[in-house]
């Protein structure tokens, strides 16, 4: 029983990563209708960015948490302006193919330059050690992952669902022409939204750097799962992506105890079941 508490907590921590990543995807899909397959590669870029900042410039973890998302987010803006913006009138599939291609290129380049084994990112000194909770040893850093990601997810949800800026964004996805007529620069808003979604991925990447090996494949292994999370939550649903991320982290964590061999497939089983019952996902609206 005690062991189970530990596993639930671990599941929640992994869920925090799923939530951060699927949130970015959901924001991008909700507002741009782009299925951003480069998300995993951008997450990896965030981690590498943090590593390069530390190794080459001596910039520490907390600054990296701020700077890396800005750098990668700026790259996202460039990608949106130069490539994605040309595809909005076409089928979803083109955006998917373009971003998938981008992901392969980015990963390939990093594989060539830095090798597949990856690089170790030093755990910041503040976070070494952990708390003995009685039922498990909780490393300080993992506790921080949950707190930080809950804050970021909650903040993003609040901005999009509860503020004026968020209402512009939502309105722009419903009817861009009308919003534009009100004097709001819709293309710029869309560009910044993509940049923000990408920055979220990079943020998750920096969060991941001290615990996972900073390796070119780190995003590729995660992205498919995160997509399943978004689909289960309902494409485009911000709150759905967050809640589903955390819940599926727990589901996966429990599978790792009871039937570990299935832990990399369980999320897809859930996806199939959900799609049969609710084709628009748990929190999605049928359009």
């Amino acid at each position, binding site marked *: 029983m005690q*062991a189970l508490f*530990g*596993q639930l907590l*671990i*599941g929640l*921590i*992994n869920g925090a990563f799923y939530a951060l990543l699927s949130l970015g995807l959901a924001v991008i899909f909700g507002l741009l209708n782009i299925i951003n397959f480069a998300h995993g590669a951008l997450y990896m870029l965030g981690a590498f960015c943090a590593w390069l900042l530390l190794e080459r410039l001596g910039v520490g973890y907390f600054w990296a948490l701020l700077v890396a998302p800005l750098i990668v987010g700026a790259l996202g803006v460039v990608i949106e302006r130069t490539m994605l913006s040309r595809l909005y009138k076409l089928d979803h599939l083109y955006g998917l193919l373009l971003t998938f291609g981008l992901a392969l290129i980015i990963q*390939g380049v990093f*594989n*060539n330059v830095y*090798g*597949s*084994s*990856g*690089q*170790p990112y*030093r*755990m910041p000194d503040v976070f070494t*050690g*952990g708390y003995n909770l009685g039922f*498990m*040893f909780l*490393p300080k*850093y*993992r506790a921080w992952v949950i707190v930080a990601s809950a804050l970021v997810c909650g903040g993003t949800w609040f901005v999009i669902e509860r503020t004026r800026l968020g209402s512009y964004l939502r309105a722009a996805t419903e009817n861009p022409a009308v919003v534009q007529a009100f004097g709001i620069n819709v293309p710029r808003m869309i560009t910044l939204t993509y940049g923000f979604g990408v920055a979220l991925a990079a943020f998750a990447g920096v969060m991941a750097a001290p*615990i*996972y*090996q900073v*390796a070119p*494949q*780190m995003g590729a*292994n*995660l992205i498919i799962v995160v997509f399943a999370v978004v689909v289960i939550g309902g494409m485009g649903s911000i709150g759905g992506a967050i809640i589903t991320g955390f819940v599926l982290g727990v589901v996966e*964590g429990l599978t*790792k*105890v009871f039937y*570990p*061999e299935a*832990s*990399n497939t369980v999320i897809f089983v859930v996806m199939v079941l959900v799609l049969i019952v609710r084709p628009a996902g748990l929190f999605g609206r049928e359009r």
Partner: protein
Amino acid sequence: MQRFKQLALATAVAALMGVAGGAGAQVSDNVIKIGVLTDMSSLYTDLAGAGSVAAAKLAIEDSGIEKKGYKVEIVSADHQNKPDVGSAIARQWYDQDHVDVIVDVPNSGVALAINQITKEKGKAFLASGPGTSDLTGTACSPNTIHWTYDTWMLANGTGTAITKAGGDSWFFIAADYAFGAALQRDTTAAVEKAGGKVLGGVKAPLNTQDFSSFLLQAQASKAKVIGLANAGGDTTNSIKQAAEFGIVSGGQQLAGLLVFITDVHALGLKNAQGLTFTTTFYWDMNEQTRAFAKRFAPLDKGIYPTMVHAGVYASLLHYFKAVEALKSDDGTKVIAKMKEMPTDDPLFGKGSVRADGRGIHPAYLVKVKTPAESKGPWDYYKMVATIPADQAFRPMTAGGCSLVK
């Protein structure tokens, strides 16, 4: 008849051109074609990958085979760690591209498939990358030589040493495919033979990012030793996260059953120090290995050769000797010849190839240096013990290989 015509034609051409070493004309299609089948894009890229191609090139250069009139070509491909992809490439290579020998193949699942196809086609397979000891056991083949290491050897070296040093209760975190299963099975046998016991194990899917759940289970088992029956990125991630969860500071010991020098490099000495494991090659053993490493590193992004790279090089050197002796590159015959001839190369020293296809050479129990002991990048291992060649690998009669009478 076709082959005879080609031979005749080629001999005629060689004679006309006045080529001194007409021997090259004896091999199929006039060229010895080597297929390096490896992981070019995923977790085993650094320990094999492009480095295996570089090692094959160095072997061609050092064997002097081209000076003796043979033409040698190398092709390479990425099997993506998928047996179906690897099989399709192997069939294409053998059937259409006239490949004579496939080398490397990290990933036991893919290697077992290639083992089967190579036997069907009567070609040659020099396995350096894969670990499963089934390649020279129940799945042994007259067309395969397993050169560098295998799960029995790792289990025997590391499992026995750690159990005898007091680590007598074990829990495994095993990669959930052929290799992890074989490694866990062989280590369990070694541990039990040395008087230890195995408390349990968990199978983790290949390419798992987060091992914390599995590590918690290992922690809860209260075993003295946690055996990591995995490789590459899976090993580095599990070692790194074990440190985070206070596994080692909590009194449990980690046993990396298959650790490559590229893993140690990726982990950094701070994370990897003190790890004890078994290897068959280390670049800093003698003048010859050091010279090889100095030539190799610039060809592979500065990576120093792993035992897999060394195995590709050495097995090909031996292959070329057999081809020269036979003046043929017929797969079945060359493999038989390779088993007949004693081996001798700069990296593994003198040794032999057994009837079951097992390459025999010493193995070394090594310990990773502390950051203070290391003189710089790639200076990572301290030699703890040498396991003599005749004890390093599974006795031939114990493997269940049908070639052994």
